């Protein structure tokens, strides 16, 4: 092995070391951010939505339909976040009706409102008439709307919940 080759090898080694350091640095820096985000929003289509609203044995599901542009939706969100803390056994699911292109806006907004500890989805299907009835025949399509699913059945609430109302409803449903 001549001097030139070994010099090359050393240079290569140093470069690999540098790259590893840079990669490690970014991995490290990225991590806290990744942890803080907890859940990322998932973009779904109708078949997945249908799965989400299926009843599951021994579980009460609260599925809220909302959008960043819907004022009454935003007003009621804190009650959902609060209820979620009080009822850890209830599954809370948030389905955004924002356009898919606004995903990052929805993500940022969810984080601000504390939804990011829940399951978050964005339904990417604008042919609303083809799927609103699949969620509930009782839903006109106006939001806010909330579907509560248990083995006893599905109930749709086309309304804005006010302080305490949602918790009372969950308590009632849990008793059944």
């Amino acid at each position, binding site marked *: 092995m001549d001097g030139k080759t070994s010099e090359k090898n050393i240079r290569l080694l140093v470069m690999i070391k540098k790259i590893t350091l840079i990669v490690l640095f970014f991995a490290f820096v990225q991590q806290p951010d990744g942890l803080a985000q907890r859940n990322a929003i998932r973009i779904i289509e109708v078949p997945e939505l249908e799965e989400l609203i299926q009843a599951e044995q021994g579980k009460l599901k609260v599925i809220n339909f909302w959008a960043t542009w819907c004022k009454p939706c935003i007003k009621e969100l804190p009650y959902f976040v609060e209820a979620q803390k009080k009822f850890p056994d209830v599954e809370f699911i948030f389905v955004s*009706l924002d356009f898919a292109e606004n995903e990052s806006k929805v993500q940022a907004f969810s984080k601000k409102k504390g939804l990011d500890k829940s399951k978050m989805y964005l339904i990417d299907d604008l042919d609303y008439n083809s799927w609103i009835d699949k969620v509930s025949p009782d839903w*006109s399509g106006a*939001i806010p709307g909330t579907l509560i699913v248990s083995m006893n059945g599905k109930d749709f609430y086309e309304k804005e919940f006010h302080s305490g109302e949602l918790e009372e409803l969950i308590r009632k449903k849990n008793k059944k």
Partner: protein
Amino acid sequence: MKNYLILGLVLLFSVAFTANKNGYAVGDIATDFSLKNVNGEMVSLKDYEDAKGYIVIFTCNTCPYSIAYEDRIIALQSKYAEQGFPVIAINPNDDKKSPKDSFEKMKVRAKEKMFNFPYVYDETQEVTKAYGATNTPHVYVLDAKRTVKYIGAIDNNTKSAADADKKYVEDAVNALLAGKEVPVEKTKAIGCTIKWAL
């Protein structure tokens, strides 16, 4: 006999109650109204003497889905008013609950967008309740006798008119103009809930 009378009364009440709760279904006769337009004049359906029908649209200033459809509502009026199907847009929202939907703000929006159709305010929300509108935009296509022929969305793509492959309102009006049955009589769409007075 007495039993039948009571039964009849109960039936009558239940029918009246459901009609009131749910608003109109296809086939019902819709009420006329007299509501104030942004130009200060009162607008009624009976003012349109030669109308073959009406495109009544509940919409507002503030709902992004209403805004997304403004140009399409203008286009409906351009296309169908002269064929005998004028557009009448009704803002159903309470202005205390939604201040940007006030009559003054309606005037501003109508001017900005150069609305070519009357944009009237249902201040008491009685017309909205009678029709049973739930969200904005929400369309009722009526024939000349004010029979409800179609209830629902304008088309099946809120984001982009070009991507909509089902134009429900146009299909309904075209069918009525041709003396045919309306192909799709009722649809649902995501929209903003109507802001009811407390």
